[in-house]
C-alpha cells in the first residue's frame, strides 16, 4: 500500500510539474489536468483491493 501510494503521489507531482512548467500551452495544461483527474478518480473511488491486485 505504501509503495502504491508513493507511486500515485509521484505520478501526480509529475503531471502537475509538467502542466505548470508549460503554463503557456493550454493543450499541455489540459493533458496534465486530465492525467491528474484520472489518477485522483481512482484514489477517491477507494477500491483498495483493486489497487493492490
Amino acid at each position, binding site marked *: *500500500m*505504501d509503495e502504491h*501510494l*508513493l507511486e*500515485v*503521489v509521484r505520478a*501526480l*507531482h509529475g*503531471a*502537475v510539474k509538467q*502542466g*505548470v512548467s508549460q*503554463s503557456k500551452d*493550454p493543450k499541455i*495544461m*489540459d493533458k*496534465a*489536468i486530465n492525467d*491528474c*483527474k484520472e489518477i*485522483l478518480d481512482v*484514489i*477517491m473511488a*477507494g*477500491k*483498495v483491493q483493486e489497487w493492490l491486485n
Partner: protein
Amino acid sequence: MFTDKIELKDFDKMEPEYKELLGHVLAIQADCEIGGPHLYVEKMLPAAPTKLDQLIVARTAAEEIDHYRKVARVAGDLGVDVSFVLSQPNEKRFVDTFRGLITTWEDNAVFGFLIDRVGRYQLEEFYDCSYLPLQRILPDIVTEELGHIEYGYNKTAELIGKGDEGKAKAQKAVDYWYVKALDMFGHTGSKRSERYRYWGLKRRSNEQAREDYINEVNPILEKIGLKVPDPLKGRHYL
C-alpha cells in the same frame, strides 16, 4: 506525567492506555489527511477558476495523500491498520468538518485558509511528543500544510479584492468554516485530551489550542476586512 521518548521497539512495553491513545490519534490524523481530498477533488478539480488553480488543487490533493501515507506507515508499524479510511464515505469521517462536499470556489479557498490551519495546529500538538517515529514525519507535512494555508488565504483575499460580491461570498464561507474550525479542537475540559497530555502525546488542552487559534485567526480576518463570526453560534463542541 510521562516524559520519556520512545521508539517503535519500546512500544510493546507501553501500557494499554498509551497504545490505545496513540493508535486512536493516528487513525484520526490519517482520516483527516485523506478526508480533505475527498471533500474538494470531485467538484473543485474540474471547476477551479484557472487551469493553474486546477493543477494546484491536484497538487494539494497529492500532498494530502502523501501525508496520509506517512501517518498510515507509522500506524502500520504499530499494528494499527488505518487503510479503512481510504474507502469510507465522507459521512463516516471521524471529524464532522470532513463529512460533506465542497462545491464552491470560495468554500475551497476558505477551507485552506481556516481548516488546513487547524490541521497545522493538530500536527503541532505532536511536536516533541513521546513517540519519536511520529515526531520525525512532522516537518515535511507541516511545511506542506503551510503552503495550503497560504494558498487558501491568498485565494480568499483575491475574492475579497474583486468587490462586494466576492467579499460577501468570502464572508459566507468564513461564517460556515470558522465554527467548524473551532469545533475541531474538541470539548473544553476533555478527559481524553488530559490523558493525551499525560502520556506526552499532545502539548495543549483543547481549549488552549482553540484559544491560540482564535488569537491567530481573528486579527487576520479583521485585516482582510471580514467580520469575525460569533464563536458560539452553531458550535457542537464547547
